[in-house]
């Protein structure tokens, strides 16, 4: 694996980032479409507008109702809100100057380390497409960079390219066991679980726990993998560990995984 060429990196579908753009284009199309319909049949344009307005009002009311019900029924609503706020805050307060500097430096001299640095900073700034380009180039120049494999795996996992993500995580772990404090191993387990390789996922996540200790995230994912593999008692144990109150102030991410574990326990008849 170490000497093999890295798997081809494909741009992910990036559905969440494309949604606001699609909404903008749709909203922009409406007046022109109504204008075109008006030329042929003014009454039809008015009818379409009335029906569309009524539909939009109903859709908004249904969305508001669904949001209210979700807030009441789903225990992770508060944790999810806290996570969303933390992510937005982080995204808006990420320093972009180092990325600009790194891109500038790359124009003078190309090296795998510099591409890796640009990829790392682009991931921090939320520019995953740019990050993929540079991580792929870094791996072309030096396929034995565990950090590039790890970051590419993270980006691909987020984009839904599970098989490629799993290969990158495994490559990172093979090149440097325990890379990023076990994060590559942890995400390799997650990618395997999402690919339906439950036994492999359980093996990787258990290995991660043995070598790096458990966190709310790893316990939750291990519980999920065990439940899918049919070990419900083991799953409940892992979820209970994940849902345990933290010693100090938990981060927004840890709080989110803890809340998810509580939901799993609630649904599967256990208690935290």
């Amino acid at each position, binding site marked *: 694996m170490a000497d093999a060429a890295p798997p081809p990196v494909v741009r992910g579908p990036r559905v969440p980032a494309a949604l606001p753009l699609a909404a903008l284009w749709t909203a922009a199309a409406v007046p022109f479409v109504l*204008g075109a319909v008006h030329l042929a049949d*003014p009454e039809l344009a*008015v009818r379409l*507008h009335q029906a569309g307005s009524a539909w939009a009002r109903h859709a908004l009311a249904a969305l508001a109702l669904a949001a209210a019900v979700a807030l009441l029924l789903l225990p992770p609503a508060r944790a999810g809100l806290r996570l969303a706020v933390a992510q937005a805050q982080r995204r*808006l307060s990420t320093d*972009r100057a180092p*990325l600009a500097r790194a891109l500038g430096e790359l124009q003078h001299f190309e090296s795998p380390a510099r591409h890796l640095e640009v990829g790392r900073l682009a991931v921090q700034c939320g*520019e995953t*497409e740019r990050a993929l380009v540079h991580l792929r180039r870094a791996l072309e120049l030096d396929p034995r960079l565990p950090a590039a494999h790890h970051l590419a795996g993270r980006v691909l996992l987020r984009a839904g390219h599970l098989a490629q993500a799993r290969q990158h995580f495994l490559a990172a772990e093979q090149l440097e066991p325990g890379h990023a404090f076990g994060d590559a191993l942890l995400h390799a387990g997650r990618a395997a679980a999402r690919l339906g390789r439950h036994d492999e996922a359980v093996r990787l996540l258990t290995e991660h726990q043995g070598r790096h200790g458990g966190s709310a995230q790893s316990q939750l994912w291990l519980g999920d993998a065990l439940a899918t593999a049919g070990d419900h008692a083991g799953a409940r144990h892992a979820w209970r560990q994940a849902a345990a109150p933290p010693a100090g102030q938990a981060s927004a991410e840890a709080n989110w995984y803890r809340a998810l574990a509580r939901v799993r326990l609630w649904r599967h008849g256990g208690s935290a």
Partner: protein
Amino acid sequence: MRSLWHHADEIPVTLVVVLAYVSLAFVTGLAEPDAERLAAYGWLTPLLAADGEPWRLLTHAFLHGGLVHLAFNGYMLLQVGPALERSLGSLRFLALYAAAAIGGGVAVCLLYPVEQPIVGGSGALFGLLGAAVAVLVRSGRHALEFLTFDGPRALLSLIAVNLLIGWILPFVSNTAHLGGLATGFVVTLLWLAPPRQPSPRFRQWRAATAALFAALLFASLFPVVRHDWLWNQGVRTADADRRERLQRAAVMAWSGRDHASEADVLRFYRLVVDPDAPRPR
């Protein structure tokens, strides 16, 4: 004031706009403006803008409804304009003022009663405030860095207080304020002060927002689902069949029903077209 005069060559657009404010205020009546003159010089109503007078989207931003209105807006322009014009350049500043004025006017056309007139540069001035926020967002190492400084925080407070005043006072158009604010912010963020290293999606955002602005402008100048516009189109159409369909569509748009009955037509005619006619039983 002396400082402004000494640096007039650096801020020509700000000074010309202030001059336009003052001279038009004298023409339309400084203390008590004459409504007919305000209408003639370009006040904005959604009805007139859609009735073949689109220039009102811009001209309303140079007219004012009295001495206090003029003094407040003139002071605000002289506070915000010079720094922004020096920062962006005069041509870009001019484009910003025009875009924000049109943005405020478009918001009014889409959301106001059709015969409600508005005047005043405050929509455009809110656009300048939005532009200042966008420049601050771009100038820092990250988007929220400007919040660590007192001056920029005071700018946000100024915007919030002015919006609050707009909500409290019934004769102030917060619709135009918000339209101008959003336009100024977006235009500056995407066009006038773009990032040095734009992301791959930056052009897509530019194209989508430009398309949305064009669509809103189209909807305010050709409101094909608004009763007044449909009725006027019908009145001007020579083709009898087309006229009938346009007028039926006008009645449908006014009544909110998906067909126009004879009773609806009668009510529409008496209540909208000829308001002096007695109400039907």
